[in-house]
C-alpha cells in the first residue's frame, strides 16, 4: 500500500488514502461498485425487510492490517471474505476508532457506542450501557435473546454495564469458552491435551483477571446449550484454536436458543504480539474461514436464514511498518492512523450487495445502527446510525 508521507500529511489525508487504496483493490478483485457514487445511501430492499430480525456481530480482537488482507500480497489470506462474503456485502473502507487501542476496552467501546476509558487490563464493566441492555430493556427481550461469546477471561464483564439505569440483570449472557473448557476437564492430564485451546491472552500472556460478571458456568452448559461437559470436551479436542472453540459455541447457541442478538469476538490474530509473522497470518486465514462458516450456518438455519444481518469488523488495526515508534504488525501501540483505521462488512436483508462505501464512519456508530435495525434508542452512544445498513 502506498501511503502519503506521514511527515507531510494529516491523519485525515492518510486515512483517506487507506480508504481509497482498499476500494481500488476491491474494485479490481471483486468488481465492487461504490455506493456513494452510484446508488446513494438508501437501502436496496428496505420495504422488504423481514420481521423477527436477527443480528450477528463478529469482531476481531486483534486487528489485521491491509497489507496482510486487502492489498495484493494479502489477498491469499482472505479468500472467503473476498470471494464468498464481499460479493454479497456492503464494505465500509474507512472505519475509524478514536479510542484506546486495547482489545477489551475497544470492544467495550464498540459494544456501548461510546469510547470507554477504563484500564484495558482491569476486570470492570463498561461505564456506558451496552447494546445488549438497550436491546433487552427497551424491547423487553428475555435473557436468552442476547449472548456474547468472548475470547478471554478479561471479557467476563462485557455483557452489561455499570450504568445506574441499566446494569445487572439487563445485559447479555457471556460465554467464555476457554473457561468452560478448563472447568470441563477432569484432570491436569486432560488440561495438557487441550492447552492449545486454553491460551487466554496474547498481548499480556500472563494476565489472568479475576472473573466477575454474568458469564455462564459449567453447570449451566447442559441446560443452556443442551451439551454435556463430556461431549463439549470431546468435541473441543478436535478443534485447532480458541477461535474455533468460540465459533463452535456460537453455533450451539444459534441451534438451541436462536438469540436475536449474538456477538462473537475472535482473537487468534493477536498472536501477532509474539512477533511471529507466520502465526499472525495463520490467525488471519482462520478468521477468514470462520466468518464464512458463520455465514453458511446463518443461511442453513431456518431461524436465521433471510432475516439476519451479519456485521464483521476488527476492533482496530495494527501499527504500520513505517512508524518508527512501533514494530510493524506486532503491536498496536503507536496510535498511528493505520492502527486506528479499519473496515466493516455488512450483509443481509436490505443491505446492498457488492458495494463499497468510502465515507468515514466511527466504530461507535455500530450500536446506534443496531438500534435503528431493532427499534431501540442507544441514548448514551456518541455514534450515529449508518444509513447504508439501516
Amino acid at each position: 500500500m502506498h501511503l502519503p508521507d506521514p511527515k507531510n500529511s494529516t491523519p485525515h489525508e492518510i486515512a483517506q488514502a487507506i480508504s481509497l487504496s482498499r476500494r481500488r483493490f476491491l474494485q479490481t478483485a471483486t468488481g465492487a461498485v461504490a455506493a456513494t457514487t452510484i446508488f446513494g445511501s438508501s437501502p436496496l430492499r428496505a420495504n422488504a425487510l423481514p420481521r423477527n430480525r436477527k443480528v450477528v456481530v463478529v469482531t476481531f480482537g486483534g486487528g489485521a492490517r491491509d497489507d496482510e488482507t486487502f492489498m495484493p500480497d494479502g489477498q491469499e489470506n482472505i479468500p472467503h471474505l473476498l470471494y464468498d462474503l464481499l460479493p454479497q456485502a456492503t464494505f465500509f473502507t474507512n472505519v475509524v476508532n478514536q479510542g484506546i487501542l486495547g482489545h477489551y476496552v475497544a470492544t467495550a467501546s464498540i459494544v456501548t457506542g461510546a469510547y470507554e476509558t477504563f484500564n484495558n487490563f482491569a476486570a470492570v464493566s463498561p461505564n456506558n450501557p451496552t447494546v445488549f441492555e438497550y436491546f433487552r430493556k427497551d424491547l423487553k427481550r428475555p435473557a436468552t435473546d442476547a449472548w456474547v461469546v468472548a475470547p478471554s477471561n478479561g471479557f467476563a464483564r462485557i455483557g452489561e454495564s455499570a450504568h445506574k439505569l441499566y446494569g445487572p440483570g439487563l445485559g447479555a449472557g457471556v460465554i467464555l469458552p476457554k473457561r468452560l473448557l478448563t472447568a470441563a476437564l477432569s484432570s491436569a492430564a486432560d488440561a495438557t491435551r487441550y492447552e492449545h485451546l486454553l491460551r487466554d491472552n496474547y498481548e499480556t500472556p500472563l494476565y489472568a483477571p479475576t472473573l466477575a460478571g454474568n458469564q455462564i458456568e459449567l453447570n449451566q452448559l447442559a441446560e443452556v446449550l443442551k451439551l454435556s461437559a463430556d461431549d463439549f470436551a470431546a468435541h473441543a479436542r478436535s478443534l485447532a484454536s480458541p477461535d474455533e472453540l468460540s465459533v463452535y459455541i456460537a453455533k450451539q447457541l444459534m441451534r438451541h436458543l436462536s438469540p436475536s442478538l449474538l456477538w462473537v469476538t475472535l482473537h487468534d490474530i493477536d498472536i501477532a504480539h509474539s512477533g511471529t509473522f507466520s502465526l499472525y497470518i495463520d490467525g488471519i486465514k482462520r478468521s477468514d474461514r470462520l466468518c464464512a462458516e458463520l455465514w453458511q450456518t446463518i443461511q442453513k438455519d431456518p431461524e436465521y436464514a433471510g432475516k439476519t444481518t451479519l456485521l464483521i469488523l476488527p476492533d482496530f488495526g495494527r501499527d504500520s511498518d513505517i512508524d518508527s515508534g512501533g514494530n510493524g504488525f506486532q503491536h498496536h501501540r503507536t496510535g498511528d492512523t493505520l492502527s486506528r483505521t479499519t473496515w466493516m462488512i455488512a450483509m443481509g436483508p436490505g443491505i446492498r450487495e457488492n458495494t463499497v462505501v468510502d465515507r468515514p464512519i466511527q466504530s461507535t456508530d455500530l450500536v446506534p445502527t443496531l438500534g435503528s435495525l431493532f427499534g431501540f434508542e442507544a441514548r448514551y452512544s456518541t455514534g450515529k446510525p449508518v444509513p447504508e445498513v439501516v
Partner: protein
Amino acid sequence: MLPEQLTPANFDAYPPEAKALAAAQIDLLRRLPLAFVPLLLRELIAYDWKFPAERADLDRQFTYLNGLSPEQLVAAAAPFANLKLTVALEKNDWINSPAIFSEQLSAHLWATHQIDAFRTAAIDYVAKANAAKPDPPLPMHRLAIAVIGQGVAKNDYRLFRKLRPQGTYYTQVKHANGVKTLLDAVAARARTEWPYNHWYIDGGAAAPVASHIATVSYTSLAAPRATLQARMTKTYEASVFDPEAFRTMLAQTKPEEVGLGAGGDPVLNRFQLSLLTEGSGTQVFATTFVQWAAREALRRAQPLTLFAHFTPRQRDKPMNELLAETQKRPELDPLGSLIDADMGAYYTWLNLQRLPEAEKAAFLVWFEDHQEALAIAPSLGRGKQSDQSIELADLVGQIA
C-alpha cells in the same frame, strides 16, 4: 513533585555519569514541564550503560534545548506543558522510576484522548532536535545482512516480496560456506576497533568472531532466559496477577540477577537484558529475538555493520510449554520461521533506512543454503531480477 522543585540531591541514586549529567543540566530540567522531564530522565538515568550513539543523541538534545532563548524554550515545551496531567502523576517517583512514570503517563494520555497531541509534539520535538545539530559524516556506508530459512529444504512462499521493489533479486547464487563467507565480509569491514560499530546477532549459537564485533546470540542467553522464564512461570501460576507489577518487575531486573553480571561488557549486558525484558516474544521465539535484537541494535547503537542470522524458532504452544522450552529439546518450525524471518529481514532493512546516510546504505538477504538472495545498494537496480550465476562472496563484495 514538579520539575521546578528539582535539586541535585534528587539524583543521588543515579549511577555516577548519569548523576553528573543531571546535575549539570538541572537549570534546564527545572524549566521543562512534567510531561517532558521524566521522558528525558528515562534516557538519562541509563546514561552509564548507553551506547556512544545514544549518548551523542542525548547530548544533542541538551545542546538543542540549552540553545533556545527563554521564550523559545517555553514555546518548544508548550505542546507538552499543555497536556493535562493528574496529581497522581505528580506524586509519582518520576525521578527515580521514570520508566514507570512513562508507562502511567502513556495510559493516562490514552484514557484522556491526549495521545495524538503527545505524538505530534514528540515527533516535532525530535525533528527539531535532530535538525539543530546534524550528524557527522560516517567513515563508511552502512551494511546490514540477514540470513534466513535455516533448515528449510523446500519452500513455496514467495520470498523477499516486500524487498524486491527496492533491489535486485538473485536466483542463481553459489553459496558454499555461505554463513562463513558473510561473516568474513563483516570481519573485513570491522577493521577499526570502535566499540559497537559492528554487530553479529544469531538465533542459535554464535560462530567465533573478533572480540570487538558486538555479539549477541539466543543460545548464549539460555541461562538468563531460563531464569526469567522461571519468574514468568511463577507469575503465570499465581492465583492473582497484576500485569503492571509484572512489567515493573521485569523493568527492574538487574543483569546480575539473571546471570549477566560477571566479567562481561556491562553495556552489552544491559542491552541483552533489555531484549528479554522489553521485547515481546523474545524470551520464547528465536525468530522474534533476532528481529527485535537487530531493530534495537540499529536504533540504539546505529552500527556501520550488522549481521543477523535467523534460525528456526520452536513451534507455537501454550505459554507454559513455551516458557518451559529450556528444560527440554523444543520441536522446531522451520517453514513458519522462514516466513517470520522474511518479514524480519524486511524490518531490518526498514530500520536501516531510519539511520543517517540511509541513502548510501546497503542490504543483503540470503536464503540459507539456497540460491536465492536479494541485494539493495545505490549501485544496484531496483525491482530487477538477475538469473546469472554469482558467487555469494562476489555479491557481498559488490556492496560491502
